[in-house]
């Protein structure tokens, strides 16, 4: 409104009416106020009021009209924003309409232009309005919450892949680990050594290194072993699954070994004393008891793998972390993005942690 009023003021003075104050000036030439009529106070007052009303109406209407009758101040201010549909404030006062907006007839000068849209952060800038066309463009950033909302579907897609990778790898790991774990326990020296080497290697080297070894290091080896020498490429999914499964297998092997060895020696002795063979004793006496003991640690291995699987991002596997990296390189908002990733990981690990705790409780009482 301020703008409109100042326009009115300016126009009135320029119009050159008598200097009785702006209330009488401007558009109401048609009213034809003469000195004689002014002497009659009642009509005078009525006219004043009517003039005032008309003036006000004219001034408020002025803001929307295209400038035609203003003298020498052709300014056009074009305000655009990405995204569109933002509200505009000029010098703190709201303007009618949303971007993209064209404001004509502003007097040249410095204005504070603010732009705001729901769910986006307010942007403001000082604009020098010069005669002629002035363009100002705003890029609005989403509020943190809205940004998180926007990237949520992408993150959740990544989370699905993380879950998928984890479930398959741990399953494979359990299969491999059961064989390896038992191989460490049974009284066959050769098996003990081979399984021991496998377990020590994959528990003694970082998973990251294992992933690189398999994805980048293995193809040339495979090529010379099975192919004609040219490396056989592995696609990231295959490399990721292999690395995670083999790694998981080593940890599971230890869990199973520990589980078996935690069963009292007396159990094996009692079983053998009855005449059962080693394998019969394993199958009927030792392993059934060991199963109960290994379930909680296996649950923990699963939860650990949920987090460790994020390392396959280094070979471009599109799981949760990699998806977030790609988002960050596009939006340059690491804080919110990584916080979102952390939350998604929590959403995955917390339920399983609860399940494992519950399992531990149940298995303890039935022991």
């Amino acid at each position, binding site marked *: 409104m301020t703008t409109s009023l100042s326009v009115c003021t300016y126009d009135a003075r320029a119009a050159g009416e008598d200097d009785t104050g702006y209330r009488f000036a401007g558009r109401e030439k048609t009213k034809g106020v003469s000195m004689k009529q002014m002497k009659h106070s009642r009509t005078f007052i009525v006219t004043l009021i009517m003039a005032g009303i008309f003036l006000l109406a004219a001034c408020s209407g002025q803001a929307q009209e295209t400038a035609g009758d203003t003298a020498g101040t052709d300014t056009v201010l074009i305000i655009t924003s990405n995204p569109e549909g933002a509200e505009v404030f000029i010098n703190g006062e709201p303007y009618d309409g949303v971007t993209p907006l064209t404001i004509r007839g502003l007097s040249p000068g410095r204005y504070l232009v603010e732009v705001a849209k729901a769910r986006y952060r307010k942007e403001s800038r000082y604009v020098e309005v010069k005669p002629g066309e002035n363009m100002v463009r705003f890029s609005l950033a989403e509020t943190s919450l809205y940004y998180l909302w926007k990237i949520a579907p992408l993150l959740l897609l990544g989370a699905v892949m993380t879950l998928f990778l984890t479930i398959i790898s741990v399953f494979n790991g359990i299969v491999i680990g059961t064989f390896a774990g038992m191989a460490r326990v049974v009284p066959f020296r050769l098996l003990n050594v081979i399984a021991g080497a496998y377990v020590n290697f994959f528990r003694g080297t970082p998973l990251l290194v294992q992933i690189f070894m398999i994805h980048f290091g293995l*193809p040339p080896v495979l090529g010379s072993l099975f192919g004609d020498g040219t490396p056989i*490429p592995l696609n990231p999914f295959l490399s990721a699954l292999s690395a995670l499964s083999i790694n998981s297998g080593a940890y599971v092997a230890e869990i199973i070994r520990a589980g078996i060895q935690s069963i009292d020696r007396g159990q094996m002795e009692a079983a053998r004393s009855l005449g059962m063979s080693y394998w019969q004793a394993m199958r009927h006496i030792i392993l059934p008891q060991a199963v109960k003991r290994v379930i909680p640690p296996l649950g923990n291995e699963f939860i650990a793998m949920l987090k460790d699987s994020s390392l396959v991002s280094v*070979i471009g596997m599109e799981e949760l972390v990699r998806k977030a990296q790609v988002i960050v390189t596009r939006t340059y908002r690491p804080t919110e993005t990584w916080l979102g990733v952390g939350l998604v990981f929590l959403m995955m690990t917390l339920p399983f942690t609860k399940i494992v705790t519950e399992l531990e409780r149940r298995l303890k009482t039935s022991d």
Partner: protein
Amino acid sequence: MKRSYLYLIIVLLVVVALVIVFTNKPQQEAARPVLRVGTDAAYEPFEYIDEDGNFAGFDIELITMIAEEMGRELELQNVQWDGIIPGLMNGNYDCLISAMTITEERMKQINFSDPYFTIKQAIVVREDDYSITGPADLAGKTIAVQNGTTGDLYASQIEGVRMKRFDTNPQAIQELLNKNADAAVMDDLVAYQAIAKMKGLRMIEIADAEVENYGIGVKKGNDELLAEINKALATLRENGKLDALIEKYRSM
């Protein structure tokens, strides 16, 4: 109880088998031969992922045109910069295009196409930091770069600098913004893009920096493909499409 375990195992094995089969896509013999391309899509404006999740950028547009010229189907793979050359050598893709400067060191491992773009290194600093006006002021400072880029090489040779190397360029820029580095060094066009997109940065051109040429990487020994790519590039040069593309991106 035992039966249901068996079923579960079978189901999981089937799922795994299916997954492996479907992700190891064999070369499509049918329609057109495929051109598999590796790129590190975190380097605006040359290659990046846009809002809709699609590949975009100069290199992307260029390789699309080249694939068209070669009569091949384009297949883009987003790979990490660290592994982009090993991936090529392992055969994960047929060529790479990733704003990669042709250097002696790289030519030892792979072959490059004819140059298709020129840049120089530039320095990016915080807007309010006036202590750095040129490469001479970088001595003794902390510089953030993307690991293994020519920017990394350039900055590493300056006296007494403390280098911080990152997997992606945006990470290096972030480090600068977080005031954990005094400057970042990268290709000039990428620097332009960074200061346009992010608040609080400004760019310093390095007048006497070496002119660098980008090339498309092809595995050594794959001369046929290299010749095809060069032919396509030549065609695009002749018919002006390459220049038009360069102009489009330089004027942004």
